[in-house]
C-alpha cells in the first residue's frame, strides 16, 4: 500500500459529501433528498433496513450510477463526469454488495482487470501480473492458485478477492458494502485488522453492515437511512443500540430477552438422520423431536450446508438415510421431501430461493400446487388468498400478491423465501443461513416465525454461523471439517461456540 502524501490543509474538508441525492428506479424511489458527509480519516458507518437505499448511494458515490438530483463532491470539488472512470477510481475504491467477480476469468486477472501490467509494446505481461496477484492474495492468507478461474473459488475466497482488489488501488477512501455478510468469524477478524491498519495510515472508510455490533466495534460515526431518507448522523459512542435501532426502524422497539421454553421432553422424534455421508464427505447423524429447534453451526467449508442439502433432497447423499415422521425420504428428491413435509430456506435466495420475474403469489405457492387447485389447474383466487395470508403473517412490504419479487428489497425477498418454506405447513423446517443480509427488524420477524412454528410442533433445523440465528436453538451441533465436533445445549457461551466452530476445544486444552 503506497501512502499518498497527506495534506493537513484538507483535513477539515470532508472526503466525500453528497447532498440532497434523489434516485428513482422506475416507480421505486430509492433515495429521496438523502445525503452523507464522511470526514477525512474516520470510519463511517451507514446503516438502515433492507431497501433503505444504502447500496444505491454507494453506486452514486462510486460513479456507477447517476443520481437524478443532488450533488456529490470529493475533497470539496465536484465529482468527475460519469464517463471518466479513471478519475473516479482515483478518488474511491469499493467492495460492492453484488459480486463484481468475473467467474470466467482467472483470479489473477480479476484482481488486475483493466489495469493489467503491460510491456512497452502495450501487450499484457501475464507472468508479472500473476506474480503480483499471488503477492496480493498472500497478504490476505487466501491460498489459491491465481491461474484458476474465479468460478472455482468459494464464496468467502471470492469476497476476499473483492476486498483485496478494492484495497490494492491505493485509494484514500474505501467503501465497503456489507463486506462481512459472506465471511466467517476468522475472515471478519482478518478484514478488521486490516481496516484498522489502513485507518492508522489515514485511509477513510464508509462501512455498511447489518451487524450492529460491528458498527460499534469499528466505526467512529454512523449515518442512518430510512425509507430513502437521511435520518441522523451521530458519533457511534454516544448512540445507544436502542436509539440506533429506533432510528433505523422508525419505531421505539423494546427488545425483550428471548424467553426460551424448551420443548416437552416426551415429544416424539420426528426427524432421524442416520449415517448421512455427502458427496464431499461430510457426515451427520442426529434425531430431532417435534417442536425442537436444532442448530447446525460451523465455519466455511465445515460441511454444514452440504448435510442440510442432503437432508432436504437438494443434493444426493452418498450413504445414509433420512426418516421424517416414520417415512424414509428418497435420497436426492426434493419432491419427495416436500411430500413428506419438509420446508426449506436455501442458502442463497438469489440462486435457489426465488424466481425473480414471477409474482410473490407464484413464488410462495410454488411448492404447494396441490393446495391452490385441482387436476393440475390452478385457481388464481386461492393462490392470491394464500399469498395474502403469507404477506400478512410475515409482514412483507409489497403492494399485493401480484408484485414481482424482483421489485422487493432484500429482506422482503428473504421473507418470501420463508413464506415459500412455510406454505406446506412443514413438519420439518430447514433454514440455511436464513438471515443473511437481512436487517435487524426483518431478522426479528423471521426468527419470531420460527418460534411460532416450533410451538405448533414443527421440528426446525437452523444451519448457520450467525450466533443470533443459533441463539434460538434448543441445542447446537457444531461441525468442523465435515464432522460434528461438539453439541451444545441452549445457553452456550459465545466463546465456546466460536471456538468449536474454529476447531478449538477450549475445555480440553
Amino acid at each position, binding site marked *: 500500500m503506497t501512502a499518498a502524501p497527506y495534506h493537513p490543509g484538507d483535513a477539515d474538508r470532508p472526503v466525500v459529501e453528497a447532498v440532497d441525492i434523489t434516485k428513482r428506479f422506475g416507480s421505486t424511489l430509492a433515495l429521496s433528498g438523502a445525503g452523507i458527509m464522511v470526514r477525512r480519516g474516520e470510519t463511517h458507518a451507514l446503516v438502515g433496513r433492507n431497501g433503505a437505499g444504502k447500496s444505491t448511494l454507494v453506486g452514486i458515490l462510486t460513479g456507477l450510477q447517476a443520481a437524478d438530483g443532488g450533488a456529490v463532491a470529493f475533497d470539496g470539488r465536484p465529482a468527475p463526469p460519469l464517463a471518466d472512470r479513471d478519475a473516479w477510481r482515483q478518488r474511491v475504491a469499493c467492495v460492492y454488495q453484488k459480486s463484481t467477480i468475473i467467474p470466467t476469468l482467472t483470479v489473477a486477472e480479476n484482481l488486475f482487470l483493466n489495469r493489467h501490467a503491460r510491456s512497452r509494446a502495450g501487450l499484457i505481461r501475464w507472468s508479472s501480473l500473476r506474480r503480483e496477484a499471488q503477492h496480493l492474495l498472500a497478504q490476505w492468507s487466501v491460498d489459491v492458485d491465481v491461474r484458476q478461474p474465479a468460478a472455482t473459488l468459494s464464496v468467502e475466497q471470492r469476497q476476499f478477492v473483492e476486498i483485496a482488489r478494492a484495497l490494492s488501488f491505493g485509494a484514500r477512501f474505501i467503501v465497503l458494502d456489507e463486506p462481512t455478510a459472506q465471511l466467517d468469524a476468522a475472515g471478519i477478524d482478518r478484514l478488521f485488522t486490516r481496516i484498522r491498519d489502513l485507518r492508522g495510515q489515514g485511509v477513510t472508510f464508509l462501512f455498511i453492515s447489518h451487524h450492529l455490533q460491528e458498527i460499534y466495534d469499528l466505526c467512529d460515526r454512523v449515518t442512518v437511512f430510512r425509507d430513502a431518507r437521511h435520518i441522523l448522523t451521530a458519533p457511534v459512542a454516544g448512540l445507544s443500540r436502542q436509539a440506533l435501532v429506533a432510528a433505523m426502524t422508525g419505531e421505539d422497539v423494546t427488545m425483550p430477552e428471548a424467553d426460551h421454553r424448551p420443548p416437552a421432553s416426551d415429544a416424539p422424534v420426528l426427524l432421524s438422520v442416520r449415517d448421512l455421508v455427502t458427496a464431499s464427505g461430510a457426515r451427520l447423524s442426529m434425531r430431532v423431536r417435534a417442536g425442537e429447534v436444532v442448530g447446525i453451526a460451523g465455519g466455511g467449508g465445515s460441511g454444514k450446508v452440504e448435510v442440510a442439502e442432503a437432508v432436504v433432497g437438494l443434493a444426493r447423499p452418498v450413504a445414509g438415510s433420512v426418516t421424517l415422521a416414520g417415512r424414509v425420504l428418497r435420497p436426492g428428491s426434493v419432491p419427495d421431501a416436500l411430500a413428506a413435509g419438509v420446508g426449506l430456506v436455501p442458502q442463497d435466495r438469489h440462486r435457489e430461493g426465488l424466481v425473480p420475474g414471477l409474482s410473490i403469489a407464484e413464488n410462495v405457492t410454488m*411448492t404447494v400446487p396441490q393446495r391452490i387447485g385441482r387436476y*393440475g389447474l390452478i385457481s388464481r383466487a386461492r393462490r392470491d388468498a394464500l399469498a395474502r395470508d403469507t404477506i400478512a403473517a410475515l409482514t412483507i412490504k409489497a403492494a399485493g400478491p401480484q408484485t414481482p419479487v424482483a421489485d422487493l428489497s432484500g429482506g422482503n425477498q428473504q421473507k418470501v423465501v420463508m413464506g415459500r418454506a412455510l406454505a406446506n405447513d412443514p413438519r420439518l423446517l430447514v433454514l440455511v443461513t436464513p438471515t443473511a443480509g437481512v436487517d435487524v427488524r426483518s431478522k426479528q420477524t423471521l426468527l419470531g416465525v420460527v418460534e411460532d412454528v416450533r410451538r405448533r410442533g414443527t421440528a426446525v433445523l437452523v444451519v448457520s454461523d450467525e450466533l443470533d440465528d443459533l441463539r434460538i436453538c434448543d441445542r447446537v451441533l457444531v461441525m468442523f471439517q465435515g464432522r460434528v465436533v461438539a453439541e451444545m445445549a441452549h445457553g452456550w457461551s459465545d466463546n465456546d461456540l466460536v471456538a468449536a466452530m474454529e476447531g478449538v476445544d477450549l475445555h480440553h486444552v
Partner: protein
Amino acid sequence: MSDTLSTGTVPASAPPPTRPSSRHLAVARLRDLALVPAIVAVAIVGWIISPVFLSTDNVLNVLQSMSEIAILVLAQTIVLITGKMDLSLESTFGLAPGIAAWLVVDPELTRGLGLGLLPDAWAVPVVLLVGALVGAFNGLLIVRFGLNGFIVTLGMLIILRGLLTGISGGQTFFALPGSMTYLGSTSWLGVPASIWVSLLLFAAGIVVLGHTRTGRALYAIGGNADAARAAGIRTDRVLWVALVVASVLAALAGLLISGRLAAVPAAQGDGAIFQVFAAAVIGGVSLNGGRGSVFGAFTGVLLLFMIINVLTLAGVPAQWTNFLNGAVILVALVVSRITGGKAQT
C-alpha cells in the same frame, strides 16, 4: 446482538414506502395486448390499400396461411419460456410428414419413391411419433448430456433436413394417403380445419401455460431453474416434456401443411425458423426464458402475416419483398420495445 431478537409479538411495521405497483401490474397485463393497436392499424391500412383485405375470403386466407407457422410459434414459445430454444423445429416440420409418407406411400404410384411398408392408417401416428422421437433426442442431448440447446438444435436442424433429403432423394412425396391430407384440406363450418386446429391449440396453450401447474413450472424453470428445482419442480422432466411437446406440435404443423399441399417437398419448412423467432419475439416472448405469453405470441404471428398479406395485395416489386419483410420485423421489434418499455437482454 441478542438484544435485537424478540420472540414476543411482532410489532406493527412501519408504513411501506409508496410504490405505485398497481401501475406496474397494469403494464404487465397490458403487455399481452401490446400488439393489438398495431394489428388494428395494419387492418385499417390494409383495408385502405385494398378493400379485399377485410373480406371473409382474405381473412380466412391469412388465418389459414399462418396456421402452420403459428403452431410452430406456439411450440417455440413453450421452449423459449423454459429458457431454451429449439431451432430444429423447422426441420421436424418437414421430416415428420416426410418419414410418414416415405413409409406409407406406395412405390408403384410414385416411381419408387416411398417404401409402402405400412398401411395408410399408420401415417398420422407415425408423423406424431417422429415428432416425439426428435423431441426426446433433443432432450437427451440438452437435458441429459447438458449440451447447449442452441447448438444442439442447430445441428439437428441440419441433420433432420439432410435426413429428409436423404430418404426422399430430394424429391417431393406425392400421392399421400387420405388420412394425411384430411386435416390440412378439409373445412369445418366453412372454415378450414387447420384454422380451427391452430386456434384450439392456442387456446389450450393459454390455459395450460397460464393456469396449470406444469405451465407455471415452465415459467419458473425459465426464470430460475435452480430455484424451481429447490421448490420441488422436476425441472429435467418438465424440460423433456416441453421439448417433446414442441416437436410433436411441429410435426402436427407439418402434417397440416402437407395436407394443404397434398405433398411433402424435401425443403418443407426450410428457413421458417427465422419467421418463427421473429413472431415469438415481436409477440413479447423473451429469449432468456421466464417471460412471455401464448396470447402475445399469437398476436405476433398474426401481425406478421397480416403485413405480409398487405404487401402481397399491394403488389410490391418482387425483388423488394424480402427487404420489406425484414424491415417489418425490425420495426415491429423496435415498436414492441418501446411499448414494452423494458430493455431486452
